[in-house]
């Protein structure tokens, strides 16, 4: 009898674990953040298994960002007399998203000011799972947000976006767009294919437009990685006839795999001139180049500006990295949605591509001071 009870408890614990970590078996619900605490109508979350709300924005960022925000779009003064609520959906599974979150929090802190009278709720979904995002958007519709900004994780969210739009809630998509067309107002993010071209041009300039290069890509199955990879390959094939792509490998965003593959590339091609990494894990490639002591011969170009990448740029081992303005990706859609709520007009439609800076050992200290 006792044993049976124990079995039941163990099974319950296991099942709970599965639900908690699984892919969206419970509808997502957003907790009210500190700013909305006075609204007694807010219902507390019962099903926050997949979603959590960050609440620290007001006290951490207000001091530095509220006075001098560097937004790409200027927030209009709220003269409507209405209070607005915007839901910002994001993920938090790698360092890139920390910078996106900083953008969201800056917009959150800024718009909380009296002239703007808008509450932004940051809703973190724990996985790139289209189903969970769709359910979270549905919940936001029910909770009556005035606007929604979300990562365009996959086509699974298209129906939810369209439903929100029909309900009169404008949706802005950022970072990556859905492949299938949705009724979203605009997409804010990197022009991934063009970014591949920028990376290729950067690498070509570093190696005198001739030599052998290897490409390490994240996953063949991720559209964003493929767009960058094709951008790189097409640019090299069209513009630089003297550059030969000796191979492409898939590192599954893992630094450890990038490390091994870089060593393989250099072993197989002792005259290799450059390596381009399209997605996660370039610091593994940098570690391999550093360990082999070939940084003068093998140039490394990658994307994004995580702490690891920046520190290798400072060491001169990563020679160029194409940034995609993660701060802007977090902040811009919120500002754009807010302006639309205030003015009733859309400022941008279609694609609002974020700026692409190439960070090099020459400008890294200026852009990323210690």
């Amino acid at each position: 009898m006792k044993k049976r009870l124990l079995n039941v408890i163990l099974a319950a614990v296991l099942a709970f674990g599965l639900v908690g970590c699984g892919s969206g078996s419970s509808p997502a619900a957003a907790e009210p953040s500190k700013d909305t605490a006075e609204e007694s109508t807010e219902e507390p979350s019962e099903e926050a298994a997949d979603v959590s709300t960050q609440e620290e924005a007001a006290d951490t960022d207000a001091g530095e960002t509220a006075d001098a925000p560097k937004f790409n779009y200027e927030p209009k003064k709220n003269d409507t007399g209405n209070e607005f609520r915007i839901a910002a959906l994001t993920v938090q599974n790698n360092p890139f998203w920390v910078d996106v979150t900083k953008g969201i929090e800056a917009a959150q802190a800024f718009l909380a000011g009296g002239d703007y009278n808008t509450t932004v709720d940051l809703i973190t979904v724990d996985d790139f799972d289209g189903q969970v995002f769709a359910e979270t958007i549905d919940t936001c519709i029910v909770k009556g947000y005035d606007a929604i900004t979300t990562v365009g994780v996959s086509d699974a969210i298209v129906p939810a976006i369209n439903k929100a739009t029909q309900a009169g809630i404008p949706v802005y998509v950022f970072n990556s767009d859905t492949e299938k067309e949705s009724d979203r107002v605009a997409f804010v993010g990197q022009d991934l294919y063009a970014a591949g071209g920028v990376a290729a041009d950067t690498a070509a300039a570093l190696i005198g437009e001739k030599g052998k290069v290897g490409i390490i890509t994240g996953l063949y199955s991720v559209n964003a990685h493929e767009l960058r990879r094709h951008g790189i390959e097409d640019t090299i094939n069209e513009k630089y006839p003297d550059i030969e792509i000796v191979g492409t490998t898939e590192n599954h965003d893992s630094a450890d795999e990038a490390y091994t593959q870089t060593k393989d590339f250099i072993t197989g091609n002792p005259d290799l001139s450059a390596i381009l990494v399209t997605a996660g894990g370039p610091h593994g490639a940098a570690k391999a180049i550093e360990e082999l002591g070939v940084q003068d011969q093998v140039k490394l170009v990658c994307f994004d500006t995580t702490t690891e990448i920046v520190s290798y740029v400072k060491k001169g081992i990563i020679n160029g990295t194409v940034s995609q303005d993660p701060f802007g990706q977090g902040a811009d859609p919120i500002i754009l949605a807010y302006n639309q709520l205030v003015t009733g007009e859309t400022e941008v439609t279609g694609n609002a591509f974020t700026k692409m800076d190439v960070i090099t050992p020459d400008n890294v200290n200026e852009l990323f001071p210690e």
Partner: protein
Amino acid sequence: MKDRVGKLKAVTGRTEFSVFLGLLLLTVAMSIASPFFLKTSNIFNVLSQISRYGIISVGMALVIITGGIDLSVGYVVGLCACVAAWLTSQAHLPWPAVLLLVLLLGTVIGTVNGLLVTKMKLVPFIVTLATGKILSGCTLLLTKGMPISFESSLAWLGSGYIGPIPVCVIIMFLVIIGGSVFAQCTLTGRNIYAVGNNERTAELSGIKVKKLKCSVYIITSLLSALCGIIVAGNLYSSDASLGIGYETDIIAAVVIGGVSMSGGEGTVWGSLIGAAIMGILKNAFVLLNISSYWQSVVIGIVIIVAVALDVLRVNKKEK
């Protein structure tokens, strides 16, 4: 004379032998195809890549021999790598304490897997799939998706060299030798085969089946924890992506190495050969500048061929 022929047949008839021939063939072909393949630096690069899978495959082989499976290994690697980095950089513990705690964590995870499989009689496939999910969530909770950089003497296990030989390669060989001796030469080891062949008979003959099955999961998680430290040490940095996908490569290595998925058959050192074949294939595609699209295709074919050989052999034996 007859006896000798019989012995020779016993050796050549084993799956490991045909797989070993395959490895030899692959090595010869590669050394002809690429002048860089037999360079010392490349050999150690391949070996250190194999070591990640090789170490864990020892435990996985034992688990599969008992008729089970462990799908949580990759996530144990990820969690232990991140815990090691966290304990070093955030809790500022000295390296022996970190090593001990991480190995203890591995043991605890293995015990949970083992108890769920033996005491509650849950299917290992589901149990370890679920614990893997839980561990992956825990890793994200711990790291919040950020890599954790650290400086520690412990990293020597992953990035150190003794002479020209990477430390992780030495660890791999020690683990493989230890595992082989354990499986072939100790009573407990032989009992593992008995359990895999026929659990009921094993139980009736007085073998403590539950304890034995539980212990193979503990060994596997412990080795995964060790591997986590090695992977983290190699880059002086851990993040939640480490270890993802290991389980499929490790199971493939074990199966290519001649361990039967239905349990009771195979050897620990066979998995090393399996891991080596996969490692060389991955290396070969880059060295020979062949599109990596082909890599998955070829590895898939190799697995099917290995399993088919195994089935053919078993059928022949039954006749």
